């Protein structure tokens, strides 16, 4: 987990990388980025009032007892939310955006699409936490890279061939 405080003396906007099975929280002028979402799902949470935002890059839907909380949708959402609250976010103001969860390949050995299951789990867990999802850019058969702007909650989605979009 990474937590950063904003440095007001720095005029360059800080970009913080979130790895795979990882999450980060920033505020103010900072942004969070994560790259290479295939079947993984990116969960962006933000609170416009406090300017605190968090981004998680989860691999699989459910932890089923595994302790690596950032790897799974059902364990990373509460952890991310708590970490945002610790930084001054109000859970009632927090909104969510989802991106990723694509199905890039159909393998003979696989049991359904992990991408679809990741997105379904994210919707379920966010519903349980009473956080509304205001935008999604999910599914399809291509990869995505994300950038979340803390101050606005804008989530920039980049893909190799499907262009760029902001949700």
């Amino acid at each position, binding site marked *: 987990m990474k937590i950063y405080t904003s440095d007001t003396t720095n005029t360059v906007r800080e970009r913080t990388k979130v790895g795979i099975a990882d999450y980060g929280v920033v505020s103010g002028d900072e942004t969070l980025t994560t*790259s290479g979402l295939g079947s993984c799902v990116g969960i962006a949470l933000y609170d416009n009032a406090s300017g605190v935002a968090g981004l998680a890059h989860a691999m699989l839907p459910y932890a089923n007892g595994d302790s690596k909380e950032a790897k799974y949708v059902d364990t990373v959402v509460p952890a991310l939310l708590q970490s945002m609250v610790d930084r001054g976010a109000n859970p009632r103001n927090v909104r969510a955006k989802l991106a990723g969860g694509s199905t890039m390949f159909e393998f003979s050995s696989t049991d359904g699409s992990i991408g679809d299951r990741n997105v379904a789990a994210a919707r379920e867990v966010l519903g349980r936490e009473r956080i509304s999802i205001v935008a999604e850019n999910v599914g399809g058969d291509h990869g995505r890279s994300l950038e979340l702007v803390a101050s606005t909650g804008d989530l920039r989605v980049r893909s190799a061939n499907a262009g760029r979009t902001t949700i």
Partner: protein
Amino acid sequence: MNLDVQSLRTFSRLAHSGAERAAGSLSQLTGVETFVNVTKIEVSTRQDVEREFHERDLVTVHIGFNGGIDGRTVLAFDRAEAVELVDVLVPGAADQPEGEMATSGLKELGNIMLGGFLDGWADHLETSIDITTPTFVDTQTEGTLEDITGDSGFQMATGDDHVLAFRNQLETSESRVGFHIYMLPTHDSVDTISNLTGGESDSVPIETFTSFSSMISEGAEQASDDLTAMTGMESAVEVSRLSFVPIEAVPMQLTDATRKGVVLEFMGTPSGYIAILFDDESAEKVADALMPGMEADPAMRQSAIQEIGNIVTSGFIDGWANALETVIEISPPTYVDDIGSAIVDPLATELAQAQEYAFLIDSAIRTENDAFTCDIYALPNESELREALDQLAAEAQ
């Protein structure tokens, strides 16, 4: 010397926490945020490690350690980049990046980072580890790892010197400086750590890993020969490695850059996934070489890449299948043109449902004039590969 998967997992965690300590030491000292990107355990030949230092133009700081465990640690980095950081430690160092002051600053940097790294190991193993004073080695002028690996290497029947390397990649914020930490424990120390942490079961002699590693190298050679035959361009295997990594670190081997190529599934013992990837320019050149003088449309280019993927995969995998005395079937290739790390992400994720760590095989084939580079990533199912290696070990006895 035996290694079991439980030990590899423990090694991986130790190496990662050691790297976190090293990153913490650097952040504290310089005020520049540092992250641990990747932690890998590799069975490499000494030549491979040396070649990597040479090709990346890295300089190194070496520190020996002894006590509870013995061996060598190496911090490798780009001198010009690192000198900028060193200026905090030794003000004025950046004014003369090649000077004595800069060198002593770099040694101090190595001391702090490698000291932090080893503290992580000592804590976990509940032992004390003493460190030697740092030595600065400019690999361009001084050359080899020969003197530094010492008894940490082990010789194979083939005559190749192998090392068990713990490789950590650290990066400062905004990607200003990248550091690689290698830890090369002595033969005996690997045994010591294995005995402390390992389970009784699933044990595979390290020689089995190295023979599998040699098989992979041969597979890569075959793939390179096939590529040469198809394209008419001389190519050679630049890297061929077997490493053990946390599964989530697998896609992080690739960047955000677009890659073109194919993904295939292989079925047998072991089953798994393979990706054959080219950067945009390489893909163009390879497709052109396959269809000389033709105005190829995108569909034709795509099928040329698929064809190459097929041939390269067969060359790559047939060798292991023969050596493991098993049959490995290969699925038809799926063409990909996407963000590099996103291509590998679904492959790692499929395996992540049943395994926490992965054996990652990565090879790079390059032509002499850099006309193209072809990267091969193979991810065999962990327990099935172990089964295959067990078989191999049983037969060797």
